[in-house]
């Protein structure tokens, strides 16, 4: 395409600015959906949440593969059979993986330079559950730079009266000493 022709196009192209939309210069349709759901948790997750309210973590064992599944499940997805007994597990564990997040969960940037602590989400393999079985949670009250793979951590629970049967009944995990 020759330059002359390109310039002609540039002249006719109009870029859209925010005020064109908000000022009603451009006609748009908008809609705010009212979508509400109430999911049945089923026996496994219901018990898990009820135990969290009591300040305990519970899993379920599959007697065939001998794994303790956490969070508990009514069936073993690998062995394809119903799971067996309920098993209480510890509230301590080992960091499987983590990151230092400078954005919140809607991808909004955190004001790190202004003193906001980065989020430090982590997957924690819980003591008493099988290797690789753990919960997604977060680590707090420690310098993000000090978090390491394989670090030992322990749950910090909300006070009993504030717990509501949610994974946020654990406020965060904090570093502890090495496993004995």
């Amino acid at each position, binding site marked *: 395409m020759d330059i002359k022709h390109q310039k002609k196009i540039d002249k006719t192209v109009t870029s859209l600015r925010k005020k064109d939309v908000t000022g009603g210069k451009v006609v748009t*349709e908008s*809609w705010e*959906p*009212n*979508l*509400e*759901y*109430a*999911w*049945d*948790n*089923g*026996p*496994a*997750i219901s018990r898990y949440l009820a135990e969290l309210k009591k300040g305990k973590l519970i899993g379920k064992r599959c007697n065939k593969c001998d794994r303790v599944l956490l969070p508990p*499940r*009514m*069936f073993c*997805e*690998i062995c*394809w059979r119903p799971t067996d007994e309920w098993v209480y597990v510890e509230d301590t564990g080992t960091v499987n993986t983590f990151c230092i997040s400078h954005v919140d969960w809607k991808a909004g940037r955190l004001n790190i330079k202004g003193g906001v602590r980065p989020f430090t989400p982590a997957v924690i393999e819980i003591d008493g559950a099988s290797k690789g079985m753990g919960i997604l949670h977060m680590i707090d009250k420690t310098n993000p730079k000090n978090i390491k793979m394989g670090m030992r951590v322990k749950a910090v629970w909300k006070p009993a009266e504030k717990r509501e049967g949610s994974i946020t009944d654990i406020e965060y995990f904090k570093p502890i000493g090495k496993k004995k």
Partner: protein
Amino acid sequence: MDKKVAIVGIGTTGFRATTPDVSYRELTYEAATKAYLDAGIEPQEVGAFVATSEDFLEGYSISDEYSPDQLGAVLKSIHTVPGDFIQGLGNGVMLIMSGYADIVVVQGMSKASNMVTKGDLLTFAADPFAWRPLQESPHAIAAMEMNRFLYESGNTIEQCAQVVVKNRRNALLNPRAALGAALELEDVLNADPVAEPLCRLDIAQHADGAVVCVLASQEKVGSLKGNPIWVRDVSWATETNALDSRTWGEAVYMQLAAEKAYRMAGIRTPAKEIDFAELNDEYSYKELQHIEALGLCAWGESGKLSEIGWSERTGEFPVNTAGGCLGCGHLFELDGGQKVLDAVLQLRGQAGELQLKTANTAVAAGWRGVPTTTGAVVVLGN
């Protein structure tokens, strides 16, 4: 079809108004366990899985990623079809015909009871410029279709009410149905109007449930136990979604899907070559409209035939033998799953008290509900 595919196993939870005792995972797990037992297979033997779901029905996006565990599909090939169960079944058939897998599992599930704002969910499917600003109910859209269908075909409101009476009575004998009832014609005609001519009892109530189906290639069928039901052909079609210019009287989408399925299955006179139909009756008039679209009687005749008992279980051409949507419940994308389930049980001679004397060839047909114009048809034979 040049390569034969059979349904070798089917399992269901049955259908209930609510299922607070189980999550969607356990709901599908129950149906899958029954289907695999029925087929005599372990999920490890399955080559590929097809789930059917729609994110807004599940309540979270990319919901297809939540489907493997409860099917035994972890670390296996799986994909989701956001459409009716029979469209999922069509995808399963293609996986076998293309040689990708010998055994394929198709899943469908409804947790309608978990959708708190069902009305808003349906209006969210409305076109944002042509329909939403008017805030007209999805039932009103159906009522306009019903009006035009009755006007053009000559069928009547009373004949639609007869469909409700039949299907809810059939459901009384179906242990899997949620909505069996011994209604009289007057009960239906006197029910509260919703969007005239539709009244409350013309509209199927929502229900929860799951259906899982195991498909196998002809080569595999021999080594499996059980009673194969052959998929003679499967097809689906969609008309324009434009409310201002779609066909309001006839279910053209279903007619096109049926014509293609019949052609490929070698069926020339469906009413003679097919013994019974399980088809979408989410609204009473839909049964009549779909009977005519599937070519099971002449245009405008379905109502009169229904009045004389033609579509009863004891009639000449039984339709919705186990209760259909009106008797089992409106199951969203699982609609075709309930239809296929009841067709398979009849063809196997396992329909219990509902069993027909002659059940060798069946047509099952699903519709994706208001405001869609998508129909899916499968012809099955024993």
